[in-house]
């Protein structure tokens, strides 16, 4: 009897554990099903009579975002934004499924793998290529040509058509780029209070950069025991190093980090092995020898390297637009601005202006399933989005604010199923002017309004917003953009295909060898002539093969 009771207890325990596990699963399926099944049934019932009343139906999939707050009585199935699309352009939007934003990308993968695409959805560049090869998505060339408005066509080719080209395979448009602004430059940030104190001119050439850092080190206006000229951290050539990198330094010498540039004979060549890089490395080695670069930079991450900027050890650094947000940690102490920074375009080694290197500005695409009945509906959504995002009439604010047309932080814009961003912004023209004249009326976009507000807080004495003023203010980083933009003073990667076969196998070793040799030259461990040896090695280790493949791609996609 005793045994029996024990047994009962144990079985209960085991069963309860097992049940608990099952219970979770059951709950999850329940959670996902209500959203999935009604929409599925809706789509089947709705598609029966699409011509009636001229309303067509397209299905998609959406990520549910915690920042999206529905008005009362509204949901993914029925809301003001979907209603507006249906009313204004005659397209009824349904969702095949809705997943939490953190799981959305995974779920898209499963959707693709199970060949269960909605009419249109957002995918990444690799998926775009795979879907094209698998013949699962539609060739949009004609649909786009017929149904996209002039405005849409213009809007998506503001960058000269590059982003559209990345979605084109063998002359067929396979996706609509989820575009954004690729024109993100780096700049040189210098302690202007030190320049003034030491009576130095503003940096115009790379020689000035060296001269100023020498002066900063020698005169030591910060009064610290550890001082260098230029702040550098351990991954200086990586795109992820937004502050304390050396990409901009290379650009100053007309050298570029691992992009494909024209070789002058109608082909492409890799920038890593060009003689201009050697010049830049000579200069860096020279600075290293003079003690202008931290001898330990190779082991310091951005935050550690930036500490020397915070406590007056270094007064110069290259960085992206948002660098001031990093500098603020040292520049503002106890509510007082204790360091003054100025921002300058990347200086050049010679008379030709330096060109900051930039990317393409697109990594995701909207694709339309081959089985979609109304691809034109998707293009109509696109047309409408561009209208309501850029110049909404008061009534069209419904697309971003909901039916009450007032901003209440509910982020209704997230409900728009197809969104593309401006490839060009005019922040550089508008913001510095608006902030200087305190004229909010010329602001055009939400981004500009937010930045203006931030900078105005600083103007009115809130020092914590110091950084926004250095980004957007009259002499801020953005104010340098119009000139770069108008003179096309940037260098864009000419290769935008998916990695070639040899690239996939050999990119790692090429980058490793490059970093090894660049670092050793900078740190004066080997002579600059090692660069020539590296170039030879680079070619042998697969560089020549990759160059061949890239040029084949270039010939086909010019």
């Amino acid at each position, binding site marked *: 009897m005793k045994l029996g009771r024990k047994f009962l207890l144990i079985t209960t325990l085991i069963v309860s554990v097992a049940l608990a596990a099952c219970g979770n699963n059951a709950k999850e399926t329940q959670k996902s099903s209500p959203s999935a099944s009604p929409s599925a049934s809706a789509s089947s019932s709705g598609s029966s009579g699409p011509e009636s009343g001229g309303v067509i139906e397209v299905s998609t999939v959406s990520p549910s975002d915690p920042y999206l707050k529905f008005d009362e009585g509204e949901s993914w199935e029925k809301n003001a934004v979907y209603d507006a699309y249906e009313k204004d352009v005659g397209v009824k939007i349904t969702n095949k499924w809705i997943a939490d934003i953190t799981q959305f990308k995974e779920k898209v993968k499963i959707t693709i*793998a199970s060949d269960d695409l909605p009419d249109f959805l957002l995918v990444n560049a690799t998926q775009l290529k795979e879907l094209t090869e698998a013949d699962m998505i539609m060739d949009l060339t004609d649909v786009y040509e017929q149904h996209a408005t002039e405005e849409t066509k213009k809007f998506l080719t503001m960058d000269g058509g590059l982003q559209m080209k990345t979605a084109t395979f063998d002359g067929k448009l396979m996706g609509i780029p989820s575009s954004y602004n690729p024109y993100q430059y780096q700049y040189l940030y210098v302690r202007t209070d030190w320049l003034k104190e030491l009576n130095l001119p503003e940096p115009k050439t790379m020689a000035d950069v060296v001269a100023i850092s020498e002066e900063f080190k020698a005169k030591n206006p910060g009064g610290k025991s550890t001082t260098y000229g230029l702040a550098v951290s351990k991954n200086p050539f990586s795109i992820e190093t937004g502050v304390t990198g050396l990409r901009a330094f290379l650009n100053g010498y007309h050298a570029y980090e691992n992009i494909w540039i024209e070789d002058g004979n109608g082909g492409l060549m890799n920038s890593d092995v060009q003689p201009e890089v050697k010049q830049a490395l000579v200069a860096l080695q020279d600075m290293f020898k003079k003690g202008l670069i931290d001898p*330990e930079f190779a082991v310091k991450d951005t935050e550690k390297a930036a500490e020397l900027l915070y406590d007056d050890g270094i007064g110069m650094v290259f960085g992206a637009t948002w660098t001031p947000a990093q500098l603020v940690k040292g520049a503002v102490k106890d509510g007082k601005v204790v360091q003054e920074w100025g921002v300058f375009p990347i200086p050049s080694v010679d008379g030709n202006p330096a060109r900051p290197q930039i990317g393409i500005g697109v990594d995701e695409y909207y694709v339309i399933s081959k089985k979609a009945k109304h691809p034109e509906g998707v293009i109509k959504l696109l047309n409408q989005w561009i209208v309501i995002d850029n110049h909404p009439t008061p009534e069209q604010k419904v697309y971003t604010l909901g039916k009450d047309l007032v901003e209440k932080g509910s982020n209704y814009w997230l409900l728009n199923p197809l969104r593309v961003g401006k490839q060009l912004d005019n922040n550089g023209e508008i913001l510095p002017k608006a902030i200087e004249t305190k004229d909010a009326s010329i602001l055009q976009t939400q981004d500009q309004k937010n930045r203006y507000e931030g900078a105005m807080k600083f103007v009115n004495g809130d020092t914590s917003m110091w950084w926004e003023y250095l980004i957007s203010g009259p002499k801020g980083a953005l104010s340098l953009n119009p000139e770069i933009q108008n003179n096309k003073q940037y260098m864009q990667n000419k290769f935008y295909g998916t990695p070639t076969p040899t690239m996939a196998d050999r990119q790692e070793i090429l980058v490793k060898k490059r970093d090894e040799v660049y670092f050793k030259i900078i740190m004066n461990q080997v002579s600059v002539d090692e660069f020539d040896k590296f170039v030879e090695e680079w070619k042998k280790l697969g560089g020549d093969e990759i160059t061949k493949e890239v040029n084949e791609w270039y010939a086909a996609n010019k």
Partner: protein
Amino acid sequence: MNGLTRIWKREWPLHLMLIPGLFLVLLFSYVPMAGIIMAFQKYVPNKGLFGSPLIGMKNFQLLIDYPDIGRVFFNTMFIAVMKIAAGLFVPITIAILLNELRREWIKRTFQTLVYLPHFMSWVLLSGILVDILSPSSGIFNQVLGWFGIKPIFFLGSNDWFPYVMVASDVWKEFGFGTIVYLAALTSINPSLYEAAAMDGAGRIKQTFYVTIPGMMPIIVLMLTLNIGNVLNAGFEQIFNLYSPPVYESADIIDTFVYRMGVQQAQFGFATAVGLLKSIVSFLFVSLSYVLAYRLANYRIF
């Protein structure tokens, strides 16, 4: 009713209790083994495990063709073997020395202090090490300076890097090992020491002829277990501390796989290297187990 069924009748609920555990082991240790197939595929995430094309041994070929493969293997073995050797020697020595301490509280305090770094992650410790070993401001180089030694850039020099890895790993982990060996020491029969003292053996002789032979089974066990790590030179540690100028002496299989597998998204290749590592480790463990059985008559199972 014979004895076996009687035992079974009494103990079967206990066996039942094994089921959840066995289930978890199956689910998390054996089912994922199906992923080994990735080593022979050109793995494409969208196509998944069963849809990706099989490419035979190409991933292994790629590994053999890797220009730096010799260097990478040498670095891995060099650092790992040194770590295994130092990881045995240091804790054993410390355990024996600690065991000689009379005052219990000194012993306990020391033990706790050296055990602490074991709980810190390499991400954290690497930041500390960069500071301690800094040639300009690091405390270590300052101390060396008192003896007239010029500052050394330990983390940036190929001559020093592997030894710094070994020393810092020993520093982090020896406290943990010490505890194991201290436990082994307590199991030695005190009468053996008394007999040795009777025969005129001093402290030193007692250590060599009683303590060390008494610890042998544990030492052999630890060695056998560690030999399996001969291709694990410590990814977290090296990844957080290395930099391009020391690639030559610091690049190990795991860091290489990280760059290739994660950064270049060559998942099939990374799996192939992982599989190769597992096979080599398995061989080494088996070999050392056989040796331990033959030489020290030690069996795990």
